[in-house]
């Protein structure tokens, strides 16, 4: 387990200068709070939906570099996408974390850099946290909810 395998430069860039990290989002439609008690990661994630697309997304939270960087990379991937497409990419990322080759590698942008995390089972949950929060926010929106809190260790 070398530091380079896990912490690719792209990941560190996102960690040092996260994109779309903010405590509030104007006109937010849904706010979810996810926590993983096993590692102690916590994340607030807010989305705004317009015309069936993710018009805005911000996250804020506490967690290791992997979870923060992954949420940052995720935000770049999904902002502007149609909701089902964002969900599809969340599933794509989840499969990648289980060792599958991504089929939409291009669309995953910087998130592809997390492929190596699959080799570190304890860190997979960190990388997934932001993605699962985003998925939950969209699904909450789809069923008309505006907030949701999830405590998980599932994926």
């Amino acid at each position: 387990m070398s530091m380079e395998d896990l912490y690719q430069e792209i990941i560190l860039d996102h960690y040092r200068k996260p994109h779309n990290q903010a405590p509030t989002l104007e006109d937010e439609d849904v706010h979810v709070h996810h926590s993983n008690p096993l590692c102690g990661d916590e994340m607030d994630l807010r989305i705004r939906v317009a015309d069936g697309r993710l018009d805005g997304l911000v996250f804020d939270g506490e967690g290791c570099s992997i979870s923060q960087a992954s949420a940052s990379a995720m935000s770049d991937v999904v902002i502007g996408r149609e909701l089902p497409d964002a969900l599809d990419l969340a599933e794509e990322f989840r499969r990648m974390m289980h060792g599958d080759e991504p089929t939409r590698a291009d669309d995953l942008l910087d998130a592809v850099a997390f492929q190596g995390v699959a080799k570190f089972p304890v860190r997979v949950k960190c990388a997934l946290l932001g993605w699962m929060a985003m998925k939950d926010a969209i699904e909450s929106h789809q069923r008309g909810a505006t907030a949701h809190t999830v405590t998980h260790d599932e994926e």
Partner: protein
Amino acid sequence: MAFDVATLRKEFPTLSRELEGHRLVYLDSAASSQTPVRVLDAMDHYYRWSRSNVHRGVYPLAEEATDLYEGARSSLARFVDADPRGVVFTKNATEACNLVAYSWVRREMHPGEAILTTVMEHHANHVPFTHAANERGLEVRHIPLTSDGQLDLEAAGELLADGRVTFAAIGHVSNVLGTINDVATIADMVRSANPDAMVQVDGAQAVPHLAVSFRDLGVDFYAVTGHKMLGPTGIGALLADPDRLESMEPFLTGGDMIRDVTLEGATWNDVPQKFEAGTPMIAEAAGLAAAVDVLTELGMDAVREHEVALTTRLLDALDAMPSIEVHGPRDPQVRGGAVSFAVDGVHPHDVGAMLGSRGVCVRVGHHCTKPLMRSLGVNATVRASVYVYNDADDLPPLIDGIEAAQAFFAR
């Protein structure tokens, strides 16, 4: 198909030991099997190379230990055709039965309901449930035996008729009579009488000797033990449907089985971890996986074939002796390799001592089946049991020893 026993025996160091100046003849595998060097090596490798605790470790040693442990779960799951998420590691089969008694019987059954079991159960598959039944005000019903040591399924039908049986605890293979019970059929009968009924099977004597498919049996819980299947002491498993486990309250609580803990209470981890509290049997899991590899390599069909052949010889040899009564089915096709018998006029303890003095290891006593002893009208039996490393050469010392006991104790 068949394997070479002489070659295989080399992997079992204890078997090459001398006992009281005699070649050691081990005919007590139904109590605990011998352990091949490959199993010892697997445990040793963990201790010498990857020694650390599992889960949540971020350093390579801990990841290796976790892979070993979770890999062992997958190996066992494959071996018994079960979902790995439905494999809960326990310290032995007895703990597996108790898990069911605490997390199912005590919690989900109510006065007025009945438990169906049999008179041939090992205490492990009997006492946890009668203890729970006494506390919960549940009735317990026992399937009796036919004269040749099989379960009386007609009587079972009558015991099920009123539909009040909501839980059945049945042994797959008897450790005393050798009887192989048709648990799939019994499970069908139980569910026909009450579709909500749960079926728990004690597979301690089955998994070492038969190809077992948990999925095909169609039962709800299945108890396994490692030390009778070439594995180490200190590990067993409960097999169950993961969704079923998900719906149940945990049994042992503590570290590793929680999702979150507050001062007031806790939420539970996913299955199967939810049922595995505390530091698990890491080395033992690695050893059990190696045992599964050995058995898989031999092939469970070949294992069974070998045992049927040897049991046939054993039964023939005992039948040819005067004053010996074999308990249990006579047909090797419907029974395993545990053969219990009485030597007329010589107490089992004395037979066992004579055999022990000649290097022949058999078990004497009630074999943790007191109700069966009462049903057979005996206090104890002598039991010889064969396994993969036994061969025809192991039988004459047994037969000679019994004859010597008969002569020595003749009054």
